[in-house]
């Protein structure tokens, strides 16, 4: 089959959304989007639609798509998908080659991506294209529930700018979706800081996203400045959920060895799935 690659900005957001949803209809973790959500995704994660690609055959039938984000000297491949009926045609491989060619042409030093754990065909494709596994991250959920943990310490709520200031000093690696740039791109970023009587302190930065009817909490990043991570994390999460008792919470890309994991579990978070972060240095 002859496959043609076209820049994604030749298509409308609605067309890209429809195509993306069709590629994911039988996916391991179905994550359909609407046009508003895809637009927000493109904006928040610095996706460049001109460098992103759609694959189609010589009859003009679309086969799949892939998106490419850029920040400084790093690129990020995301939303790669091929229609179920067009798999094993080489479309996924061709899309990847074009993404990497675009990244190399722009002088990118390294390209990142995330693959859902146990998505073996995608994982093998990325290995073949020169990606190496870096770390594993958890995607966790928390349903609203009454908070019973006794409150300790003094809390300061952080506005957008104060939350970003904290995040600028974060010493660990963050994946693309939780990185400073992603949080800066969203007006929904806020946070809280806690100081305990025993001298412990830390902060939690998150997004408080407004839907038409309700809000949800997402993109949680916790940092312990001083003291025990479990204690600081438990207090921060407890305060957050006390403040927003009816919000559903989606904690994406928490490192599997994050020192605050016990706090997440103590608050009733459970894992939906895991992602593997992979990187390809410039050859």
């Amino acid at each position, binding site marked *: 089959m002859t496959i043609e690659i076209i820049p994604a900005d030749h298509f409308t957001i609605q067309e890209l959304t429809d195509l993306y949803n069709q590629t994911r209809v039988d996916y391991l973790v179905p994550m359909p989007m*609407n046009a508003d959500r895809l637009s927000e995704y493109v904006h928040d994660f610095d996706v460049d639609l001109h460098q992103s690609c759609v694959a189609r055959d010589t009859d003009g039938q679309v086969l799949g798509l892939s998106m490419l984000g850029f920040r400084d000297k790093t690129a990020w491949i995301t939303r790669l998908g091929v229609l179920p009926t067009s798999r094993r045609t080489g479309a996924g491989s061709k899309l990847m080659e074009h993404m990497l060619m675009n990244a190399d042409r722009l002088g990118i030093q390294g390209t990142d991506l995330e693959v859902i754990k146990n998505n073996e065909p995608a994982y093998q494709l990325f290995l073949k294209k020169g990606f190496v596994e870096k770390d594993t991250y958890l995607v966790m959920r928390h349903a609203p529930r009454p908070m019973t943990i006794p409150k300790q310490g003094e809390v300061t709520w952080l506005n957008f700018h104060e939350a970003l200031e904290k995040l600028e000093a974060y010493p660990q690696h963050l994946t693309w979706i939780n990185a400073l740039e992603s949080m800066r791109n969203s007006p929904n970023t806020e946070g809280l800081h806690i100081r305990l009587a025993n001298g412990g302190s830390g902060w939690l930065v998150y997004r408080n996203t407004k839907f038409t009817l309700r809000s949800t909490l997402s993109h949680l990043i916790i940092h312990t400045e001083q003291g025990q991570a479990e204690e600081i994390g438990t207090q921060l999460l407890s305060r957050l959920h006390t403040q927003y008792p009816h919000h559903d919470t989606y904690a994406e890309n928490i490192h599997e060895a994050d020192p605050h994991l016990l706090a997440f579990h103590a608050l009733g978070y459970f894992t939906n799935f895991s992602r593997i972060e992979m990187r390809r240095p410039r050859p």
Partner: protein
Amino acid sequence: MAKILYIEDVQDNITFVEKVIRSRGHEFLFAKNAEAGLELAVTSQPDLILLDLGLPDADGQTLSVWLRSSPTLASTPIIVLTAWTQEVARQTVEAYNLNGYLCKPFSLKELVNMIDLVLGTQAA
């Protein structure tokens, strides 16, 4: 006869479930996204909600929170129909205070049994 609302974005799944539900003599309603599903649930007050977890505007877990926070839907039975793993489906049902789950692909018989079980439980 019960009024059953299915919130699901994939037309093939809607068609399959609609056939099953109508063949059992129930009234069938559907919505293809979370916002429309919530609106239809509030206005139609179904006896049972079948909920897909992967929806285009907000996922099913978030939608279940919205449904449960509506006073008239707080105790409406909700069954999750999902492509997620059994373990995630089980934890979701427990954490979000839902009534049951079926992991895709499920058979016609499994769907019928689950609906009968949940509606029967409600009647009792």
